[in-house]
């Protein structure tokens, strides 16, 4: 689960990292008032989880409360689903630094990345100037020791007063990483002000979903999702991704689903949505189909599974009874295999469905149905 910038900065402040004075605003008039209280110039920062907010115009520097109110209204009215603004006092910047901690899976250690040229995305930096990124690794049990923080900083070429100020930032970043069961904690940019102070200009914290039970402070809200559908499915515990194509995908297993997505693209088809029907959800065919059928752009529903514990016969029965209840207007293509597949195929055939057993064949059929080629 990703935290919003304003949440990440609350965490930073709790750990003694400096963040700019700020207020949040849910309306244009709140933004105007915040700009008054903080004194301009302030920056209006749209609290959305997507990257590249600057380029998308979702961050605006304003020089008067009136301008703040006006720009805020424009942001709330934009098509980007902005529901909250962080109104932040502008900072007098001398230098921008990149610092983050994430996971190195091979080493099974926390991995720090530091670049004294921040402000760009780490992917861009890694592609264009990999030599400018400095790494350090910390064992999650032993923790990050101060000498490792120093080492990272000295290797990045930082010395003197800035080095002294950066050491606690690195150490605190690790504490946040550890305490919040994070996948990623990133400050980009970390501003060095003209007064020599280090201030977090932005903040990303991603909390591991598998640790949600011990990170109860944060819960999933509508703001975390691009669409109502994504949010509703997530509340139901059903992994769901919204696209805007023609084939509504109900698959079991992340790897198989991704592969079916590829195959649809290879065949020239497009995906309306991607719904995980495996794992604990294999008995919830009705709810799954209900969500899929809400896609008004969908021209066909494609079900592909090849499961073990998620029994084929149970899934087939679920599909058939959901069909009877929901009476879908679009055709359904099934390719259900795995445990008890013979029984599954009988059930599907009895309901008038063609129980396919080859994934590519099923994909091709779905794509041609979209084209109106057959039914």
């Amino acid at each position, binding site marked *: 689960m990703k935290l919003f910038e304003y949440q990440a900065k609350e965490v930073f402040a709790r750990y003694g990292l400096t963040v700019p004075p700020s207020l949040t605003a849910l309306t244009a008039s709140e933004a105007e008032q915040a700009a008054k209280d903080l004194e301009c110039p302030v920056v209006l920062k749209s609290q959305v989880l*997507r990257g590249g907010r600057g380029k998308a115009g979702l961050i605006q520097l304003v020089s008067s409360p009136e301008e703040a109110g006006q720009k805020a209204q424009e942001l709330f009215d934009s098509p980007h689903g902005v529901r909250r603004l962080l109104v932040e006092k502008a900072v007098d910047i001398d230098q921008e630094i990149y610092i983050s901690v994430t996971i190195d*899976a091979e080493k099974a250690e926390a991995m720090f990345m530091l670049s004294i040229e921040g402000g760009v995305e780490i992917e861009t930096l*890694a592609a264009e100037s990999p030599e400018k990124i400095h790494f350090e690794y910390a064992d999650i049990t032993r923790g990050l020791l101060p000498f490792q923080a120093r080492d990272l900083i000295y290797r990045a070429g930082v010395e003197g007063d800035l080095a002294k100020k950066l050491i606690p930032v690195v150490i605190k970043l690790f504490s946040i990483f550890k305490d919040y069961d994070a996948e990623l904690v990133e400050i980009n940019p970390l501003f060095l002000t003209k007064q020599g102070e280090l201030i977090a200009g932005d903040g990303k914290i991603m909390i591991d979903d598998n*640790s949600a039970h011990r990170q109860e402070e944060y819960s999933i809200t509508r703001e975390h999702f691009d669409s109502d559908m994504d949010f509703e499915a997530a509340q139901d515990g059903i992994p769901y991704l919204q696209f805007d194509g023609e084939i509504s995908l109900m698959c079991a297993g*992340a790897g198989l689903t991704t592969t079916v997505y590829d195959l649809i693209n290879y065949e020239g088809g497009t995906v309306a949505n991607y719904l995980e029907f495996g794992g604990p959800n294999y008995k919830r065919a009705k709810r799954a189909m209900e969500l899929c059928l809400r896609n008004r752009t969908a021209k066909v529903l494609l079900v592909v*599974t090849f499961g073990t514990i998620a029994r084929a016969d149970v899934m087939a029965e679920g599909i058939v009874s959901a069909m009877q209840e929901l009476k879908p207007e679009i055709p359904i293509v099934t390719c259900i295999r795995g445990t008890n597949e013979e029984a599954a195929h009988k059930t599907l055939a009895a309901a008038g469905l063609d129980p396919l057993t080859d994934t590519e064949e099923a994909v091709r059929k779905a794509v041609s149905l979209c084209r109106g080629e057959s039914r």
Partner: protein
Amino acid sequence: MSIFINKDTKVLIQGITGKEGSYWTKHMKEMGTRITCGVTPGKKGQQVEGIPVYNSVREAAAEHEVEASMLFVPPRFTKDAVFEALDAGIKKIVTIADGIPLHETMEIRKAARQADALVIGGNTSGVISPGKAMMGFFPYWIERVYKEGRIGVMTRSGSLTNEVTAMVVRAGYGVSTLVGVGGDPVPGTRFAELLPAYQDDPETDAVVIIGELGGTMEEEVADAMNKGLFTKPLVAFLGGRTAPKGKRMGHAGAIATGGKGTVEGKVAALEAAGALVAQRPRLVGDLLKQALTEEGR
């Protein structure tokens, strides 16, 4: 032979009295797996499928020979169970748990490496050598997938494994040992770490890897091939070629970060190392035939 597990491997089941544990204990035993004992804290003295149950691994290992441990333990208790097995000196551990806290997967992998042990998983179906033994929950009864043979399979996925392995069998081959390393971002064991065992296994002629976007496991396989650590034919299938950037598709482990982990990068690395990469599952069989014919087998 076969890698990781064979008919003689003495297996302990942690969490044997649970619903999943007892159900799959029955199946593993039926398939031929040699299960010597089981553990569930507080259930000492019980029996599951005729297998004696103990309170702790230490206690079970004192009474029985144990070479490997199969965990049917919920994700939040998996770290504890893995460390219990490691502390008892067990060097082969399989955990199927889906949902182990990420930071604990780091601790698990680190501890396993320090103990010179292999932990397979979490978030996997386990390990199977068809016709010999199984640690995990595979539908071994589906003959068009779990047929005994001479092709090693390594996979990050579950259902996709059935899909791809069915293609291996359709091409006339069978499986020597299939290892699901699991879909977690930090699996206990990585593809490349299993290659030496496949290389040394006289019953494996070639290996199929089933990968996906994200991480660097496939790149590490290419590295191992480049270093000559694995010289048998290798065929790969990778899901997620067309996955849109920025959305998390597939497993939690399937994220491309820092310019690494794209399918294009993986394919290029594998092909440069001499692997054959199938664009579709269906083509895996053809490529295997091609590779094994070239090898003159």
